[in-house]
């Protein structure tokens, strides 16, 4: 269903009909995948990264707008876990009734840009944009999230930790659409917290951010999942620190998080927002605070 080129078309002109031509906005996933099978396109969701990235009135080149595709937005149970549709907007995540293990994701959703960004930006867009400071990543890493990718060739599921390969780099192939984020049921236990640090209150671009999920059984930490964003090329889990927390009493866990071990897991940058050394130390402090807050919340809950 390629639209015929207009004979008088100038470079950059697009067909005005949103369902055809250089700007495609299909309602059906199959149509979207067919279109990508014919050639790469800029994939557009909430637009909150695409538009700032162009100095033009409209992004250059052919566009596939996913916002009308049925079934890509929404949160719900699926076999073996929970699925967050890739086109789910931040505001809907912040307002969703989610298990305590995903409290960190909700907290992150409420701190992405301002309300305007939260009303437009999508979780899938955030992950595909693959900024080292993407707010969605630390919470999702602590729940072992996996990414569903679809193409005309089929479906595949990859761990989020593998999906993000570097700053602005992912495993998504040109003909693939991220359809959803899968969270295995095993990772939906426990409680979580997200903490973001910047130099101002709103519209914060992180200096550092952390997500922590703790599962406490019999008064001991049975699972600790810690992730730090904006302090490495991609957000990282901290297995060594997590291991140190295993079996600890929650109210003593924060004291087991040491700057040096956190720093060893990260490779922060020196830039205009903060020095590398500060970033690593701040990440450790944020982790301690997140863990301590979860411990005291847990104590209060008991």
């Amino acid at each position, binding site marked *: 269903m390629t639209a015929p080129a207009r004979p008088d078309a100038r470079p950059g002109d697009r067909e005005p*009909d949103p369902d055809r031509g250089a700007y495609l906005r299909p309602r059906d996933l199959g149509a979207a995948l067919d279109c990508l099978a014919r050639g790469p396109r800029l994939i557009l969701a909430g637009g909150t990264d695409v538009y*700032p990235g162009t100095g033009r009135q409209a992004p250059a080149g052919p566009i596939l707008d996913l916002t009308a595709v049925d079934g890509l937005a929404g949160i719900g149970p699926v076999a073996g876990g929970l699925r967050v549709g890739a086109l789910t907007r931040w505001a809907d995540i912040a307002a969703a009734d989610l298990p305590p293990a995903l409290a960190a994701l909700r907290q992150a959703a409420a701190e992405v840009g301002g309300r305007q960004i939260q009303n437009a930006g999508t979780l899938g867009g955030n992950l595909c944009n693959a900024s080292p400071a993407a707010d969605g990543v630390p919470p999702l890493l602590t729940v072992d999230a996996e990414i569903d990718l679809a193409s005309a060739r089929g479906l595949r599921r990859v761990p989020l930790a593998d999906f993000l390969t570097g700053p602005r780099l992912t495993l998504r192939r040109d003909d693939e659409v991220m359809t959803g984020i899968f969270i295995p049921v095993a990772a939906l236990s426990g409680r979580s917290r997200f903490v973001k640090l910047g130099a101002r209150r709103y519209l914060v671009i992180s200096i550092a951010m952390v997500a922590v999920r703790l599962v406490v059984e019999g008064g001991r930490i049975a699972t600790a999942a810690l992730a730090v964003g904006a302090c490495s090329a991609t957000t990282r889990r901290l297995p060594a620190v997590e291991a140190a927390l295993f079996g600890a009493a929650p109210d003593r866990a924060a004291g087991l998080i040491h700057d040096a071990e956190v720093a060893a897991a990260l490779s922060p940058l020196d830039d205009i927002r903060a020095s590398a050394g500060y970033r690593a130390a701040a990440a450790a402090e944020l982790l301690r605070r997140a863990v301590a807050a979860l411990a005291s919340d847990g104590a209060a809950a008991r």
Partner: protein
Amino acid sequence: MNRPDPGLGLTLNGAPATLRGDPARRLSQALREDLGLTGTKIGCDAGDCGACTVLVDGRAVCACLTPVAQVAGRAVETVEGAGNAAVTRLRAAFLRHGAAQCGICTPGMLMAAAALLAEVPRPSRDQAEAALGGVLCRCTGYARIIAAVCDAWRDAPAAASPASGQAIGARMARLDGAAKVDGRAVFGADLWQPGGLLLKAVRSPHHRARFGLGDIAGWAAARAPAVAAVFTAADIPGRNIFGTIAPFADQPVLAEGQVRFRGEAVALVAFEDDGAEPDLADFPVTWAAGEPLLDPVLAEAAGAAQLHPHRPANLLTAGRVVRGDVGAALAGAAFAVAGRVETAFVEHAYIEPEAGAAWLEGDVLVIRACTQAPVMDRDETAAILGLPVARLRIIPSAVGGGFGSKLDLSLQPLLGLAVLKTGRPARMVYSRAESMASTTKRHPARIVARAGCDAAGRMVGFDFDGLFDTGAYASWGPTVANRVPVHATGPYRTPHVRARARAVHTNGPVSGAFRGFGVPQAAIMQEMLYDRLARAAGIDRLEFRILNALSDGDATATGQVLRSTGIRACLEALRAPWSRALAAAAAHNAQGGITRRGVGVASCWYGCGNTSLPNPSTIRIALNRTGRVVLYQGATEIGQGSDTVITQIAADALGLPVDAFDLIGPDTALTPDAGKTSASRQTFVTGRAAETAARALRAMILSHANLGDGAVLTSEAGAIRVAEPGAGGQRRIELSRLPADADGHVLVAEESYDPPTSALDADGQGVPYAVYGYGAQLAELEVDRALGTVRLLRITAAHDLGRVINPMLAEGQIEGGIAQGIGLALMEDYVPGRTENLHDYLIPTTGDVPPIDSILIEVPDPEGPGGGARGLGEHVLIPTAPAILNAIGDATGVVIDRVPVLPHRLRAAILAAEAAEAGGGGGGR
């Protein structure tokens, strides 16, 4: 093969609408360009400022990030809509609270708030802050906006316009407020003539480079008809040099052969303004980048490359004030301290990037653009274009924030050049990046200073040396170099002074005017030294300042003997809040924990008007045959409130209510010169001219009625009634029967006022200003010692306004200045090439400005209008940063030597202080 474009259907402000064209286009552009709904403002095109906030199905989104395809079939509401009850309530509340100042963020604020009120009709302050956290405001400090949103549920009546004789002191709504809350105010980008040209500048990506232009004619021809014309320096008919201070003017409109800063324009391309995307790709320019000089210390070192051949050591100019023998005084001081501090480039970050349009009316070139200085624009642009000034008319648009940067020319000569050369109308709108890269900044300063007092705490000497990075071109560098030494002591009695400042060129952005002309940077150093000196002398920090505050009869560092000196009253007004704040901080700190509270105080003084130079204002006021008063008001309203304040002053001087007035201008073809909106001069200087002119008109009316000065005037349709109180005489002047001029004016008065000053001698001795304003602020905050973050708790601001003309507008100025001071202290750091957007360049959001208590002090100045008014606009920013820095010092014990105090810098300072303490360094503080 062309198919008709069926367009996208949507519901727009309750009515069906259709958008055509590229479905990927930004909704903001489509609303403004296709539908003429220019109430939706574009501040950044990147979702960083929220000015373009609209509602889509009731949800607030940035129209600049929304492709038009995504609103197909949906309900879009903009500020122009009349059907949204929440917006209607918010408009009234914004007017009531003075929540709109320049008005450029107002549409975005209103729409974001409307989305909140739909969910929460009576929001808390926290809810309002969160809902508006995505909309930046640079004028108001957010306090009035938040208050208005929280209060919008109330059915409060609009404040009545003050009665005759009661305008001064009235908390009246601003005269330009209604247009701003309705989205009708017409800013620089909001008016253009269709079928004209759209201008884009080709700018340097290098800090320093030589460049060559290639086959421009061939490039343009290959892109015809999209490209209509290209202009370079060779096309400029007059003098390709501008600069606000004529003897120092050095900046080319279009560079010739070399560029001296990143963002400098080398060519101007005129595209057909037909909706097509202008494309400067492949423009034939080749760059040979050179090693840039970006450090002012290196720039003045021997052997440094020279930016301008006639300025050895890259020295633009230096200023000095010397009084007494500072060396001896400090040597003999009981207590002496020394310090240094470094500040950053600060971007004005008004939410309206430079924008305007131009066209020909007969042989007169009309340029309508945002500006703070229409007459200066006219005179400079005329010289550039080789036009007599009579053939150039400047009409300031509504101005979406200026703060000093819109004093300089930006796009005016570019617009004029294109229109003159082609005969066609043209418009130009800077992108956010272009605005940030190419316009002026606050001067980065490197200051060293020493201060000393006697055993009783009385200041004996102050020695100040400031190096100011003035960037590539002169702009207002000379003013900074001259103003800083005059103000360096702060408003304190200082018998022995040596204050020196020099402005040095680098390949950084042009440093110019920014609210305070270098005085805020100087005050940071002086006030931090005062804290250390007070501690050394064992005197309470506030009492130390009160002890040394300038009083009537004291001489300043320039030898000027002061009268009506308000600083002591400001400081004394802080005594009660100071005691309370110290006690609260001590109570918090006694609990231990990772956070520490601190309290800081700092003062300001600031001379109103030009430094030792003439700066007259002229106001014309007329009585129409209809009975209306026409105020020809040439002072540019940039959000600070001059339209309203000057009218209030004129109304009481004339003896008619503000309601009887119509304002005309500013417009260089219609209004006399009321000078530039800078140097906190409009309320004082233009206000005084307005007062004098209004009194003159009153005298004419009374003379006509043959009644005495006690008579009361009443405006009626076509008549003025003049009545003496009691059993005195009464006359009715039938204006329609009197001869009128072509404008319908029956009586016209025009008066000027120029503040009396004298030149400064080689030691800076003289009377630089006729009037000073004073203030002091108290900051309370909490430092997170582990993260180095600062949370502001409250700021209490006492300012001497001489006479308060409009308390609501004054408080709005204070709150807005404080917000900018917060940015200066804690987050703003412009790095050319790195922070040319509002994403990386951080300015305070709703959540960064704490509650502010304003205390308005009135120590009337005999020179001021309305019973003694002083200027306020710049004063309010000066004490904020040093008060914050002193509070951080109080909380942590660290000595700040660099601003902004970003978290990593404060954390490093805390660690260093802890290490010094652990090392047994002692020494105290």
